Structures are given as C-alpha cells and as structure tokens.
C-alpha cells in the first residue's frame, strides 16, 4: 500500500511538473528550463511506474526502452529544421499508437471470460482505440504528404464526405456492439482496422498548404488518445497530461485556421488547393506588366534605406536560404539600416516553423515581428523584401471580397514605400491565385532562386 501511495504521489508530481514546464514556455528566456522540467516529470512517471508490482518481467521493458531511446535520440539529433513538421507528425503518430495499444491490451487482457465489459471501461477502451488509430494512420499520411511521399494535392473522390461519415458511423456502431458483447477479438481487430482506415481517409483529402492545421489537430488527438488511455487505466496523470496536450493542439489549430481565415470544417472538408485553377486563369486575363530589378539596383535601394522589413516564406526554407538572408540582414544593420523580419503564422509548414528556421540561422527572436505588430509600421518602412512568400502578402485578401483568400490576414507589404519580391517567376502560390502585388508601381520583381538572389545581393551590398 505504501508503494502504491508513493507511485500515485509521483504521478501527481509529474503532472505538476508538466504544467510548470509548459508555463515556462511563455518566454524564450525560460523555455529551455521549462522543457527540462517537463522531461524530468516524464522521467519521474517512468521510474514510479517501474516500481509497480504488476510488472514482473523487466527483460522486454529494458529492450523496449533502450530501442526507443536510441531511435528517438538519433531522430532528434539528425532531423533538419525544415523537416520538423514531418518529425512532429511521426511522433504524434507514435504517441497515438502507443495509447491505442494500451487500450487494446486492456481489452484483450480480459481473456475469454464471457461477461461483457463494464460500461465505463468499455467506453474508455473504444475511445482510446478509435482516437489512437486515427491519430496513428492520419499522422503517417501527414508525414507522407510533408515528406513528399504521398501527393501533396488534395486527393478527392466522389461522395468522399458521405463515405467518411458512413465509415465513422460504422466505427461508432462497432464500438457500441463491442462494449455490449463478450470478448470478440475479431470484432475488435475490425474496429482497429476501421480506425486506421478512417485516419487515412480523413487526412488524404487535405492539401499540402493546409498541413500546419492538420499537424496541430493531430497533436491534439495524440493528447486525447493519451487521456483515453488514462481513463482505461484510471490513471489521472495520463488524463491530465493528455488534456494539456489536447488543449495545446486545439489552440494551435484555432490560431492556424484564423491565420488563413478559414473554419476548421473548411480545412478538413474544403479540399483547398485542389480545384481552383479556374480562378487563376480568370485573374490572369488582363495585360499586366511587372517591373523587374537587378541585384545592383536592389542593393542600392536596400543599402541606402533607413528601414527594411524582410518577409520570409516557405520558399526561403525550401531553398535553405535563411542563412544568406541573415547575412544580408547583418550587412544592412552594419550600414545602420533598421532590419526587421515579419513572420506570418502560416509562413512555414507548422505553427512557428519560420521562427525556428530563422533562429537556426542565428536571427535573434527580438527581430521577429508578428503581423499585427509589423503592419502599422509598414507605411513608414522604406523597403519590404518578400522572399519565397506569396499568398501571405497578396493584397487581394484584404481588398477583394471575392478572392478565395478574402479576409486572410496578410503582411501589408504593398503599403511600404518600396517592395521587392524575390521569386523565380510570376507563378501563383499555394492558393493558385494571381497576385496583383507583383504589378503595383512601387513593386520590383527580382527574379531568380532565393539562394542565388540573396547571395548576389550580399555581394552587391558589400561593394556599395
């Protein structure tokens, strides 16, 4: 009894450490210790569990812990910062799968006793199985899409929504059946497979540009799966931790949706980026001329400006040009130019992704600004430089109520005195719509790959 008491107190302390750790994420100054505190909480929970008398054989546990730790260590050390969304997706999936397996074990552990499950336990087990399964397969599809293994385009087919709805209804019906009947291993396997299929089908119709939302939502699911496992085991530490993660994922999902001015339902069922070429064709009808600029002239504008705001987009990360951008920013700062970076919430492939990429390139976080902070300053900014971004600076989102991205918050670079856009061509962005910004009188297009263009600019600014 005393050891049980100790274990439960340890779990409580773990939950407290998680909350304290998350609280310290409120500032980059304290975030690192916060993460360490949360990790300590996890270590405590694991050590306490190992003292559980229900554990009689440690051989496989040690093997599992070592294998998992080694794999996790290597993945964490070697992953590129650009690939962070994929890795978080994989980790989400593993977390969800582990929770699902815990629920499954609890179901199968009853042996072939004829009695149906206790209602409470039954509901918890089925919820854990469903959420865990959906999280696992959904995360793997999200990983495939982000990694480029599965088509990034929104894969759609007729009656998709109806079919998914029927599948979800079938899963719930199967759950109810399993709760009310005695042990049915085959029936349970069928439910697990159903959950896995559902996860795939829910994520597959979502386009690449919407992945930040999906990854955030799956993050939330992995938390809810852990909570469900907590209900199965009547373990409050799991319930609390899972709820914290569930809340975190929901908040991030909501932030991402607002940043695109779309509802979650629209992201999940709207199949954005799949069928909009007609809009692009219509908008590109008129004769419009963009003004190109070369490296030398651009360096002149930048070098003699008082203030410059850089607007990086995912194209910058794809080109791995964030280090060059920082180099250019440093050169300009050395010349007395005020340099800021405007970060749109959906600039990267997951919430806050661009901030991490710039931090990696050694840009101090104090130079990064959110849209609501930078927009009021843009009319007094000499030059706004857009690198590898498109839709997030499209004035149509603000001015054209009929635009597919109408109402989406944008970085208002068109209000700066000059606007330079580093881009390969005039092609549209993810949303597949033309950008009138390219044709404004104070806009200059600097064509070329981001890496090469920035290198040229660095060179030219040095010779000023």
């Amino acid at each position, binding site marked *: 009894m005393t050891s049980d008491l100790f274990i439960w107190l340890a779990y409580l302390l773990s939950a407290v450490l998680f909350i304290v750790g998350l609280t310290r994420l409120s500032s980059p100054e304290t975030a690192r210790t916060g993460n360490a505190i949360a990790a300590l909480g996890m270590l405590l929970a694991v050590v306490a569990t190992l003292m559980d008398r229900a554990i009689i054989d440690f051989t496989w*546990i040690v093997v*599992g812990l070592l294998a*998992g730790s080694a794999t996790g260590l290597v993945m964490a050390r070697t992953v590129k910062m650009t690939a962070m969304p994929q890795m978080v997706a994989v980790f989400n999936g593993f977390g969800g799968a*582990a929770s699902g397996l815990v629920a499954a*074990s609890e179901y199968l552990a009853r042996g072939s006793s004829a009695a149906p499950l206790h209602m409470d336990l039954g509901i918890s087990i089925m919820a854990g199985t469903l959420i865990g399964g959906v999280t696992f397969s959904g995360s793997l599809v999200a990983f495939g899409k982000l990694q480029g293994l599965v088509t990034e385009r929104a894969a759609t087919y007729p009656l998709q929504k109806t079919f998914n709805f029927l599948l979800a209804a079938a899963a719930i019906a199967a759950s109810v059946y399993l709760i009310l009947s005695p042990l049915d291993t085959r029936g349970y396997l069928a439910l697990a497979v159903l959950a896995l299929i559902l996860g795939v089908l829910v994520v597959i119709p979502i386009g690449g540009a919407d992945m930040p939302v999906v990854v955030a939502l799956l*993050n939330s699911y992995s938390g809810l799966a852990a909570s469900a496992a907590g209900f199965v085991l009547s*373990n409050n530490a799991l319930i609390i931790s899972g709820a914290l993660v569930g809340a975190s994922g929901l908040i991030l999902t909501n932030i991402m949706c607002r940043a695109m001015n779309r509802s979650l339902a629209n992201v999940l069922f709207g199949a954005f980026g799949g069928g909009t070429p007609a809009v692009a064709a219509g908008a590109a009808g008129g004769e419009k001329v963009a003004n190109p600029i070369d490296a030398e002239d651009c360096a002149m504008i930048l070098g003699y400006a008082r203030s410059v705001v850089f607007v990086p987009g995912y194209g910058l990360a794809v080109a791995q040009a964030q280090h060059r951008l920082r180099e250019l920013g440093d050169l300009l700062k050395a010349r007395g130019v005020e340099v800021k970076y405007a970060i749109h919430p959906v600039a990267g492939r*997951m*919430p806050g992704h661009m*901030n991490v990429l710039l931090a990696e390139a050694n840009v101090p976080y104090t130079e990064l600004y959110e849209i609501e902070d930078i927009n009021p300053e843009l009319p007094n900014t000499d030059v706004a430089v857009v690198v590898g971004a498109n839709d997030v600076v499209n004035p149509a989102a603000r001015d054209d109520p009929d635009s597919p991205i109408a109402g989406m918050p944008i970085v208002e670079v068109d209000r700066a005195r000059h606007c330079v856009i580093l881009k390969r061509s005039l092609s549209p962005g993810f949303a597949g719509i033309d950008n009138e910004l390219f044709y404004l009188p104070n806009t200059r297009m600097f064509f070329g790959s981001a890496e090469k263009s920035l290198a040229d600019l660095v060179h030219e600014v040095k010779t000023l």
Partner: protein
Amino acid sequence: MTGTLLVGIYVFVLAMFVGFEVITKVPPTLHTPLMSGANAISGISIVGALVVAGSGESQLLTVLGVIAVVMATINVVGGFLVTDRMLRMFRRDREGEEGS
C-alpha cells in the same frame, strides 16, 4: 457511471482549462517547440505501456506492450530532445556562441 469515471471526467475538464490558460500565454515564436514539447508529454502513455509489457500475462500482451513501449519512448525521448535542440537556438541577440 462509477465514481472513478466521474472523477476522471472532472480531472480531464479541469486540466483542459489549465491547458488553455497556460498555452494561450505561449508566444507564436515558440509554437513549434510548444508542439514538439507537448507532443513529448503526450508520450505519457508510456506509463500504461510499461505495465502491459511487464505484466507477463500472455505472449500477445507482451508483444503489444513492447511495441507500445518502443513507440512511446521514441515519442518521449525524441520529443524532449528535439525541443531542447530548437530552444537552444533561440537567442535575444547575436552575442554568444555561433551556430549549433
């Protein structure tokens, strides 16, 4: 509904509120580390996985348990380490050591 379930629901709902309060204070610049860190916390199901893997009730359960332990451990260890790696890069100004 039994008392245990009810208590569980109480705990869940209250923890959600704590989560909302705490997470809304996280600045956007830390959203990626928040996700990977929270992700690592969701690996708490390792606690359940360990008990299943070590209970020795049947071969099937041991196999399921060990798979769950491996996955949850990857989630936990990888999640916390990668979060630390990211947070190390965040600095206020460019003084101090270069690169990572």
